């Protein structure tokens, strides 16, 4: 058990906590962290399609009878009522990961509205932790290499960016803020790129392999990484710490590597493959041409590459974790070097198994 002063928390270890998306990459670590902190009654909400193997492992490991696993659909208001019954904190991690705008919207926004309605109806909620994403910010007004933090504006042109996931997340955040007017106590957390064992793909901010060869687009940009365990702990603290209300907190680790460093290490530690360095300016021109072709051809190609997307993901910014450290007293326990070592080791083993 991680020793913490319970007087700093808004709930006691006996109070009920709901985690939606509890079987996901981050969700399962949030559950594990909550149990490590000594919370005894954690309700895990998962999709009916979700295999709850990793959750069952956690239940076995912690040997706690107070862990509940509920399978359901957040699109069902009845399921939401059952899930929200008697809970003091909700960690809302379930999200739409569809490729389409309506798919992401339905599974991020409508589901959030449903769980919020249920929570408000039950009147036991002390805090709602909405897990959003760093991808919702706009960096148009920030120069290359400038600081992107919680004071930056949320992008309002996510449709033009052709980014259904970020669109769903931004709209989800808006629903949460709207519910604050109905008395919802909330915190919005926006993790950067969460990595660690369990994730296999190279982050899109590093580059893409859409055209058959890996295009390294990140160059010397800083990568907003957060190691899974660090991120999960930050999310947990955002829910339980006293004195945090109606706040937005970005989650990134310390000692962030550049995209080039990450790719170099990946090639050394996981597998070697060919990549081409493409400068931001060159890819910006390509995105401009693609965007215009998409319009000119009346949608013969989707505007999947466009200037806005290029700007957000590959222009390059600096990131800060000062606010979350100050408000929650959070420190990334797993240092960047160690996090990357574990991640690369996991990827290497997976590669070997595939071979």
């Amino acid at each position, binding site marked *: 058990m991680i020793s913490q002063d319970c007087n700093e928390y808004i709930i006691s270890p006996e109070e009920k906590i709901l985690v939606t998306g509890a079987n996901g990459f981050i969700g399962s670590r949030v559950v594990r962290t909550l149990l490590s902190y000594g919370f005894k009654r954690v309700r895990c909400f998962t999709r009916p399609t979700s295999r709850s193997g990793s959750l069952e492992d956690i239940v076995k490991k912690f040997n706690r009878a107070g862990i509940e696993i509920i399978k359901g659909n957040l699109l069902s208001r009845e399921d939401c009522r059952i899930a929200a019954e008697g809970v003091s904190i909700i960690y809302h991690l379930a999200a739409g990961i569809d*490729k389409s705008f*309506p*798919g992401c*919207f339905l599974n991020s926004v409508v589901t959030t509205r449903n769980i919020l309605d249920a929570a408000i109806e039950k009147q036991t909620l002390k805090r709602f932790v909405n897990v959003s994403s760093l991808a919702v910010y706009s960096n148009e007004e920030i120069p290359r290499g400038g600081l992107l933090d919680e004071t930056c504006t949320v992008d309002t042109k996510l449709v033009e960016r052709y980014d259904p996931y970020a669109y769903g997340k931004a709209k989800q955040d808006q629903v949460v803020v709207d519910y604050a007017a109905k008395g919802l106590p909330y915190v919005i957390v926006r993790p950067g790129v969460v990595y660690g064992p369990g994730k296999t793909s190279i982050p899109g901010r590093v580059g893409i392999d859409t055209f058959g060869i890996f295009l390294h687009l990140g160059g010397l940009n800083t990568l907003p990484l957060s190691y899974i365990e660090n991120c999960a702990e930050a999310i947990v603290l955002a829910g339980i710490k006293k004195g945090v209300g109606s706040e937005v907190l970005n989650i990134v680790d310390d000692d962030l590597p550049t995209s080039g460093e990450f790719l170099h290490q990946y090639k050394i530690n996981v597998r070697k493959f060919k990549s081409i360095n493409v400068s931001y300016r060159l890819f910006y021109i390509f995105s401009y041409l693609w965007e215009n072709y998409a319009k000119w051809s009346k*949608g013969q190609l989707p505007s999947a590459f466009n200037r806005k997307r290029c700007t957000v993901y590959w222009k390059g910014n600096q990131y800060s974790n000062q606010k979350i450290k100050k408000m929650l007293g959070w420190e990334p326990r797993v240092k960047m070097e160690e996090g990357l070592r574990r991640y690369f080791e996991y990827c290497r083993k997976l590669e070997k198994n595939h071979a």
Partner: protein
Amino acid sequence: MLKIGIIGCGKIADLHAEQIRWIPGCEIVGVCDQEELMAKQLYERFRVKKYFTDPRELFKAEKPDVVHITTPAQSHFELGKLCLEAGASVYMEKPFTLNFKEAQALIDLAVEKKLKITAGHNVQFSNVARRMRRLVQNGYLGGFPVHMESIYGYDLGDRSYATALLGDKRHWIRSLPGKLAHNIISHGVCRIAEFLNCDNPKVIAQSFTSQFLRNLGETDIKDEIRAVIMDQNGATAYFTFTSQVRPIIHQFRIYGPRNSLIVDDDHQILIREKGTKYKSYLDHFIPPFVYAKQLAGNGAYNIKKFLKRDFHMSSGMRNLIELFYQSVRYDDPLPISYKEIIITTRIMDAIFG
């Protein structure tokens, strides 16, 4: 300006709105979904005039000329009736209705109201399908079709749809008479229906659950269908729906008394099978080159269409919508005959019955 409404603002509605925005002379005047948030997101993204949660309000406020119904099939009949009674022609997403009875009633109502209705059999209007139709209309087969084969593959691994369905015992697809297949097979069945020369063909069908699904503990969903279809004039057809054949293919073969055609929807390839017979070994040497030439020709044709901005991924839907709007505007013939819609529904009834 043709005024368009959309009822049902989920994923498929996006595809419709995306096509409509490029069609000149029309405007989406209202979108409607009983879930207000869904209606609002479509309205915002496509800069539609208004959004509604009640179709009656849509009709009252905007009086659309055409309404696209993109809701689950269980609501198609009631919504179709509502639209026609309100004076709007209807583009109905597939499957047209739950059964023949509902399909016939909607078509009768459209005729009675002097309005139009069509089914979202958009695969019939892809570039390759239109090429095939032109050849058949020009007599390439050398007479009526003797036999047809339609194979329609489906990928159960599709994350966004099939996995959700398999895990969710309350999924709306499960309450369709034919469950998963009911929502899919009309694309494959209508290809046969187009060329059948009767109203009520004979159908012998066998449906079963694949071993793959049985291993997952799924027994309700039939993901393999084999059907033999025959019209009163003796034209026959085989229809196959499969989730297990790899690669996943969508093909249609139509055999005439003189020549035959093969349509490969996945690669947009049309192959002419000529009845020409070469002497002796030449029959083994010449045809491979003839096929190679045809395949190269298909590739060149597709590239040419792409360069001319006429090779959209959803070109079938765009073409069908354009033709349907023309039919509504100028009283042109319908792109899909009512007979074809009825036969498709009857065959599906027989398969699921």
